[in-house]
């Protein structure tokens, strides 16, 4: 029987990593991710986790060491946030085309300047096109479940891609939640040992990371794109299997009162839970509203998104990052693109909010739904609105 305990989410993530029995952890501290790697160091130091803990001198080296370790065939984990993710950006790009199934937790935090240790999704947006599979968790349980799933997804022979699990800094990393941990034996059954097909091995030498001249570069990139597109099926399949084993089901786009609703609010990350309370209250008041949450950010769940809001007239998208000088919020841009050539499509309204740890309350979400509906009906002079900004 799985046990349910009250535990800080960062510690829970480290415990979930332990359940996955990684071989190498290479990481560097940064708020609000630090508790995850501190606890992993502690688990290794106490002999509770048999892994090499590489306390690197930077995030650039953290991800570089992860490349080496995964290429050697070892199960590999790291975690970072914000500036750390920005510093390792160059290396993050390398993992996917080299098909290295590294798992990385990102404790989402705003990017400088001004310096802010608090949550938004600017770091998440900065790695959008790195080719990683990206899952967005919304609460502690989802973090634990998806860390375990991430290893299985990334290491699936049909996938062989790195996987990021995003979770909101502080709002998730530093809160204590009731979390159910699967038993080690069940995880061992669910997650077979890592079998990287062509590891760096003197018995069978391979060259990894040759440069590509123009005659082959496009094909290499096409193969990478086909690969991540095809991975969606596997992600969904593994989520189904996880549900069968542990009784919790995940979807690429999760629905909350959204079927048939005329106005739908779309969120990413932990604010989704606050938004749900607002939506519940509005539904209780008799309003025709619903909510969807983006669980799978890459590969982008086009079909699932279209299906989820097929009856909606208004789709309000809340971004927690700015695409400076861009058309609207970065996720809203993609949502608009997803519907542009559809015969029937909702009017997409873009809000940006919750920047650098700014709270959006239940009342705020209710107001946002009201305002968004209004904008959809009457039009707005702005392409998007920064919610709650003092101009």
């Amino acid at each position, binding site marked *: 029987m799985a046990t349910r305990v009250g535990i800080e989410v960062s510690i829970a993530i480290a415990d979930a990593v332990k359940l996955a029995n990684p071989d190498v952890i290479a990481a560097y501290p940064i708020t609000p991710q630090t508790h995850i790697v501190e606890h992993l160091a502690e688990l290794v130091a106490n002999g509770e986790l048999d892994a*090499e803990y590489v306390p690197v*001198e930077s995030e650039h080296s953290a991800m570089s*060491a992860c490349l080496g370790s995964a*290429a050697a065939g070892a199960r590999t984990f790291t975690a970072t946030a914000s500036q750390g993710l920005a510093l390792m950006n160059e290396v993050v790009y390398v993992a996917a085309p080299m098909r290295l199934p590294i798992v990385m937790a990102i404790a989402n935090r705003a990017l400088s300047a001004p310096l802010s240790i608090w949550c938004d999704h600017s770091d998440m947006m900065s790695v959008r096109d790195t080719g990683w599979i990206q899952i967005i968790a919304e609460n502690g349980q989802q973090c634990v479940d998806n860390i375990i799933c991430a290893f299985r997804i990334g290491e699936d022979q049909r996938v062989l891609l790195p996987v990021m699990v995003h979770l909101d800094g502080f709002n998730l990393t530093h809160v204590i939640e009731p979390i159910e941990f699967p038993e080690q034996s069940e995880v061992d059954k669910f997650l077979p040992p890592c079998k990287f097909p062509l590891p760096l*091995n003197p018995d069978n030498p391979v060259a990894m990371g040759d*440069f590509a001249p123009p005659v082959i570069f496009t094909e290499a990139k096409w193969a990478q794109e086909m690969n991540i597109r095809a991975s969606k099926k596997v992600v969904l399949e593994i989520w189904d299997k996880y549900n069968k084993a542990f009784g919790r089901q995940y979807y690429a786009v999760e629905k909350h009162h959204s079927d048939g609703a005329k106005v739908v609010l779309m969120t990413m990350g932990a604010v989704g839970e606050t938004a749900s309370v607002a939506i519940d209250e509005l539904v209780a008041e008799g309003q025709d509203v619903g909510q969807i949450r983006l669980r799978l950010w890459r590969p982008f769940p086009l079909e699932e998104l279209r299906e989820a809001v097929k009856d909606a007239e208004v789709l309000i998208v809340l971004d927690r990052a700015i695409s400076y000088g861009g058309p609207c919020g970065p996720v809203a841009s993609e949502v608009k693109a997803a519907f542009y050539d559809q015969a029937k499509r909702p009017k997409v309204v873009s809000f940006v909010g919750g920047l650098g740890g700014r709270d959006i309350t239940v009342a705020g979400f209710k107001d946002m739904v009201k305002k968004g509906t209004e904008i959809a009906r009457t039009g707005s002079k702005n392409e998007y609105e920064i919610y709650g900004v003092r101009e």
Partner: protein
Amino acid sequence: MEKYAVYVPRLIKKRENFAPGHRACIGCGEALAVRMAFKALDNNVIVANATGCIEIVASQLPFTTWHLPWIHTLFENPAAVASGIEAGYKAMKRKGMAVPENTKVVAIGGDGATSDIGLQAISGALERGHDFTYICFDNEAYMNTGIQRSSATPFGAATTTSPAGKHSFGQFTWKKNMPEIAAAHNIPYVATATHGYPFDLMAKVRKAADTPGPAYVHILSVCPTGWRSATDTVNRQSRLAVQTGVFPLYEVENGVYKMSIDLPKLRPVKDYLKIQGRFRHLSDDLIQQIQDRVELEYQKILEKANNVTKRAKSKSKTGAAKASAR
């Protein structure tokens, strides 16, 4: 001499870990040094390569020059990649997974990858004590991108970003002393080598790879393209670098310095400088400055080596005295 030519190849393994067919320039000292370095080792080696000439000339999808498992990812990170490989092997072996025994990890990079952009990653990997060898193939500039200066470019050398001109005599800083920086990490083995002394080079690479813990080998690699020098004299240039004291050959084993060859008298640096176009513009005055600096630096290393010998002698004396007192 004839007999020597017959005999010498027998001292070296036939196996090429870095095979012919790559696209290095004519007379490339770096390709020569890489070939020798990996000839010195068996095939139980994994190579992590920095971006740079060697990576480019030896790879191109879908081909490779390497007969060893080889990985290239980025310019500044092979030491960190090697850390990960070493950690992965260590963990997998401990956990009973099937990995080959006694696998050596060797990270390689040019002087730019080593003394500039990758210095932090190298320092981190040396400090953490990974069991690996880092080899810097130092051709004294960013050659892959077209002969730009690095911190390892010698004083007075003209490069495309330290050109000689009316207001410039070329590189105006003194070469960063990377082997000494490595030695300052108190790692078990540091050595300098160059392809003009092939057996010395191979012995040092072997020793480095056999040393448990981190080892660093700094190999001066003549680049006739970048040094504006003759392609048929690369080994002579390499030997002159040693014989003039410009590039002293030495080892630091567990902190103990040892000169690799005895040079009763250094040749004038001019002998080395005058056969390279990159120094063509230097005045006698600047050449004298270089001469003075070379002597000073050479003396520093020599003193470290001599001190060690002296200390070792006095230590064995006091040891003997103590023993007799007891």
